[in-house]
């Protein structure tokens, strides 16, 4: 009934000396002191570490922490034909920056982007892994469009390309596949186009469960419309909205939910007394399943120690909730 999951990224370094591996290797690789392969091996090691940390925290569903990603936008875009990668831009309202893609030609899927990352993680994880990718609407909105005459055409070609990637991820054994679409919260008027894109993506999924996650904005207004999309799970960020809990309780859910009640952007540890009452109100209203308690967004906005503590805290709260709800 109530499970726990990570939402996306995980800090790739920490403050302890033994946690500096990635930073040191990256610096050496930039200077040409180590090869691409050697850097890749360090990324493999760090990926293993972050997966093991998530497992140690007690999560039911983990991610690979996106340790290999420069950022959630360019990592996907550079794997597709049609994109050049440009300079840095602020990522939503965070203090994180992404490299902005520029659409110079027709967007096409040419080869798997995340499949080998996912397979690597699946191989070494004791617990199921979900691949996470940034969705077509958000990538389109984050890009400079120098090719398509309209946003619509760009979004739909991206949906087709990423739909193909998702099909490949399912073939590689993914049971839950997460698509991140934070940008729709900032542009609710584009919902018709957004729906078309999600429908296009879902055509590529047979048995795997598609999870649509949004964050960095208030989902209350779009919640009802999200329920009409052909996805299996809806991930919500509760840290931007006063009324989202009430909206979800009032409308219930015919789909599984990802409850982003644990703030991935702030170091303050949530209290059981704050979260339990919300879970007790929401969980009984969910008809579809499952319900995941997860961070509101990726955890790379926090120091490593705090990210781990957040996951431990989350697992503890979920355990207590299960006891209380019977």
């Amino acid at each position, binding site marked *: 009934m109530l499970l726990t999951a990570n939402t996306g990224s995980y800090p790739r370094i*920490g403050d302890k000396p033994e946690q500096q591996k990635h930073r040191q290797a990256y610096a050496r690789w930039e200077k040409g002191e180590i090869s691409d392969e050697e850097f890749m091996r360090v990324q493999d090691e760090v990926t293993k570490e972050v997966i093991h940390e998530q497992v140690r925290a007690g999560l039911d569903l983990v991610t690979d922490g996106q340790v290999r990603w420069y*950022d959630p936008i360019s990592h996907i875009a550079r794997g597709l034909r049609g994109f050049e990668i440009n300079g840095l831009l602020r990522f939503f309202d965070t203090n994180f920056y992404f490299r902005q893609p520029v659409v110079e030609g027709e967007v096409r899927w040419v080869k798997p982007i995340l499949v080998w990352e996912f397979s690597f993680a699946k191989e070494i994880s004791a617990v199921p892994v979900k691949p996470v990718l940034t969705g077509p609407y958000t990538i389109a909105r984050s890009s400079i469009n120098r090719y398509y005459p309209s946003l619509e055409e760009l979004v739909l070609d991206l949906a087709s390309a990423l739909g193909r990637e998702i099909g490949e991820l399912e073939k590689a054994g993914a049971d839950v596949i997460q698509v991140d679409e934070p940008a729709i919260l900032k542009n609710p008027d584009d919902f018709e186009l957004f729906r078309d894109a999600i429908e296009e993506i879902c055509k590529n999924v047979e048995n795997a469960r598609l999870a649509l996650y949004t964050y960095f904005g208030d989902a209350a207004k779009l919640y009802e419309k999200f329920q009409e999309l052909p996805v299996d799970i809806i991930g919500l960020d509760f840290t931007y909205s006063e009324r989202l809990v009430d909206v979800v309780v009032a409308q219930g859910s015919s789909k599984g939910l990802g409850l982003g009640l644990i703030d991935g952007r*702030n*170091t303050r540890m949530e209290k059981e007394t704050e979260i339990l009452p919300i879970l007790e109100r929401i969980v009984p209203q969910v008809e579809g399943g499952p319900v995941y308690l997860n961070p509101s967004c990726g955890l*790379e906005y926090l*120091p*490593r120690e705090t990210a781990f503590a957040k996951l431990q805290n989350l697992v503890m709260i979920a355990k207590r909730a299960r006891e209380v709800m019977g």
Partner: protein
Amino acid sequence: MRRLGLDLPLLPTTAVGSYPKPEQLVEARRMLLAGRLKPKDLREMEERATKEWIALQEEIGLDVLVDGEMYRGDMATYFAENLDGFRISGLVRSYGNRYYRKPIIVGEVRWRGPITVDWWRFAQALTKKPVKGMITGPYTMMDWSFNEYYSSRRDACLDLARALHQEVKALAEAGAKIIQIDEPALSTRPEELEEFVVDALEIVTKGVDAYFIAHVCYGAFEFIYPEMLELPVDNFDLEMSNSELDLVELFKKHPFTKDISFGVIDVHSHVVESVDLVKRRIERALEVLSPEQLWIDPDCGLKTRTREEAIGKLQAMVKAVREVRTGLCRGNA
């Protein structure tokens, strides 16, 4: 301006805040952190570097100077370390392989005593040109910090404003006539501008007799325009060198009613602009603003450029402004 005793030419030239630190100073800061250098020895090097940059700015011919921030690292952590109520976090990634530490608000934020006044006095004593006082604004301090104490962003921002008001008062009492409030986070959540940012800046500036500048590291300010004009400052410092914003359109509907420090130098590019390019950028500003409203400066701090690039860029800027001034005066004759 005259009431404050400031006698500035048309199109005053200035800088935004930071200059590149000399290599020995960068090394010295590392050594201090490693416990291998005494604070007073670091201070000597910081003073020497500040003297150098004040002299360079005078040589280049800037009208309003900055102290160059030889003593500062991150603009938020610097203030957090000097206010009550803060701790500093572990490492967080900014982009690529760059990591930084964030302030964490763990208790009530309070002003402990003057933070920047000493350095302002030191810099001002070296020159007859006005030196800007400079603080990181309450909204940016709040937005860039973790918050484990206040129950809302608004409450954190307003308490920060009260603390920073003390600093601004102290700067003015020491003699600072131009005070810059750095608010690079201003455009992050535009709805909050009218919700509490205006109130916060009113708290910061209330009763202080100075010319206030709000530095907003953001060229595409249309999301907070014209609401941003409600902020109780005299001048907005904007990053305009690469902006594709149609100012004619924007200001047609809502004229820009305050002064503007128009950024005409790209601080993210190592290319030193030609005088002609800078002139064109200034002329773009003059299409929509009256000369009396206009200050000219680089887009942002120059600490990411080399010493030579920074000097070259400022020289091009000053030369361009002088040529434009001549043209304006001829035009008015």
